[in-house]
């Protein structure tokens, strides 16, 4: 068997045939994410963008508390691990003392839209020049599949066993739509990881967001990624992908919510 840490060696493959390649800035280590999980896809695209913009040596990333808490084990850049929900406050602290650095946060929906809502809104309202990458998988993945603020109505989780009842448990929070209303937001978009085309669009969005920060455009870039959690949703990766397309995207339609010219 091939040791995965050594990469796959195969002579019959031509460079032309390669459809997936690990960017060098994504470390060659085994990830802890479940099979089919969107986190790993977003990590890869993120590091491709950082490489392409040649900002690896001046980027500081903030990992959340959530399944991506160990993101720093995979991303070959300086990183800080923040308390649950406080990533954008941590990013603000860095950016205020080192405005010449490129700073981003990477946060789940529980982290960003429940416990960290105040920090999220105020960071964008101040127009901090950072990139916020928001992974919305409609659930608390790390703690074992509890209801998140983004959980869809009727969706079953361990803390909404009969399906989310909006009357007693509130409505799914479309936080990106709220963010787009803030004058401090420079670029707000919602993308996904369901298809190869979707991933390419996500990459384009990330490229724009980091480019804006490099150019010191006034305001925050906020990129929501509608993602999955096969483990928490209790589905196979294929079922999860289908459910994401059919149910999640109905509630969280893809596209730009605010662009620099709107």
């Amino acid at each position, binding site marked *: 068997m091939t040791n995965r840490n050594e990469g796959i060696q195969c002579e019959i493959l031509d460079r032309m045939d390669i459809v997936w390649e690990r960017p060098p800035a994504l470390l060659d280590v085994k990830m802890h994410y479940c099979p089919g999980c969107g986190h790993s896809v977003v990590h890869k695209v993120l590091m491709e963008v950082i490489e392409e913009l040649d900002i690896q*040596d001046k*980027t*500081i990333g903030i990992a959340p508390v959530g399944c991506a808490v160990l993101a*720093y084990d995979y991303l070959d*850049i300086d990183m800080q*691990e923040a308390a649950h929900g406080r990533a954008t406050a*941590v990013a603000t*602290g860095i950016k*205020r003392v080192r405005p010449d650095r490129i700073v981003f946060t990477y946060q789940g929906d529980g982290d960003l839209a429940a416990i960290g809502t105040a920090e999220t809104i105020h960071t964008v309202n101040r127009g901090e020049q950072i990139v916020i990458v928001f992974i919305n998988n409609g659930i608390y993945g790390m703690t074992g599949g509890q209801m998140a603020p983004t959980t869809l109505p009727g969706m079953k989780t361990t803390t909404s066993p009969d399906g989310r009842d909006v009357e007693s448990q509130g409505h799914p929070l479309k936080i990106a739509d709220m963010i787009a209303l803030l004058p401090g937001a420079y670029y707000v978009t919602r993308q996904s990881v369901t298809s190869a085309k979707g991933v390419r669009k996500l990459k384009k969005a990330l490229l724009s967001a980091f480019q804006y920060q490099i150019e010191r455009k006034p305001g925050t870039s906020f990129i929501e990624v509608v993602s999955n959690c096969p483990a928490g949703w209790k589905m196979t990766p294929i079922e999860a992908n289908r459910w994401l397309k059919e149910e999640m995207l109905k509630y969280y339609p893809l596209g730009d919510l605010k662009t620099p010219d709107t």
Partner: protein
Amino acid sequence: MATKLLMKGNEALAEAAIRAGLKAYFGYPITPQSELLEYLVRELPKRGGAILQAESEIASINMVYGAAATGERVMTSTSSPGFSLMQEGISYIACAELPCLLVNVMRGGPGLGTIQPGQCDYFQAVKGGGHGDYRMIVLAPGSVQEMADFVYLGFDLADKYRIPVLILTDGALGQMMEMVEFPEYDIEAHLVDHSSWATTGKKKGSERHIITSLFLDPEILENVNLHLQKKYDTIREKEVRYEAVMTDDADFIVVAYGLSARVSHKAIEMGRQEGMKVGLLRPQTLFPFPSEQLNALADHVNGILVVEMSAGQMVEDVRLSVNGKVPVEFYGRMGGMIPAPEEILNEINRFYSQKLIEETF
């Protein structure tokens, strides 16, 4: 050049922070420390630092976490309820070993309490406050001069040990006006090179830096804890600071810090005039606590009175220090009440008359 100015305690602290090379301040308004934020808003941007009024104390402390991890001198300040909100963040900072300066200008509690001065956050300050086995260095100024002096000291200790340093003071010292001298201070000479761990962007060809307090493997986390405890032991050994007033010939001493120590000082002077051989030990560091010094004093005094503006918190550390060698009494006022020197003198008197009775029978 050294300068001498008449200033409020809070302002002296803020001015000293700028002179010590403060690069960023993050804070949220709360009485009785808002002058600190207001002073820095006026002065810091002009003098090379960044300042931000955060949306909460939770945000402030996490901004400090982020900024401190770049290796710059950063701080926040607050008063009791705000300090409670910061505890999770402080625990992260302590575990990730980030140097920074924190200030709690205490008021009376619990709850929303009062805006009047208090000393009821001692336990929270010296025993950890947040979750986990961590400590901060805790400095307790006793005058406006020390409000300034302990800022330089605080930053130096924070940098030296990669530890959060807390200045624990109270609303009265914060508002009090006194002359304060700012010494000549060469910032560059004091700055420590943090480039081996600070997150400022991964240098080409070198290892990335990671700031975290997550260690999932219990064996590794135990080692992290052992490392922290070792550091705290070094601090206990090397960084104890206190002021001893007329303790050499004393047969009875008062132990008090901050504002209580100022009042107690007055009380022992009155006691001396009445012929009592009474002294004062004023801890300037609450962690590390002057335990050995107290234990040694207990060999030649007959009793100790601890005075605090609380229900009795530091008194526990005094009792642990003297380990039953002599009786340790407590006198405290709470809820923003400041004891008068006469009240303390009464307590001292009571001790002497009790002693007298014991000796007669």
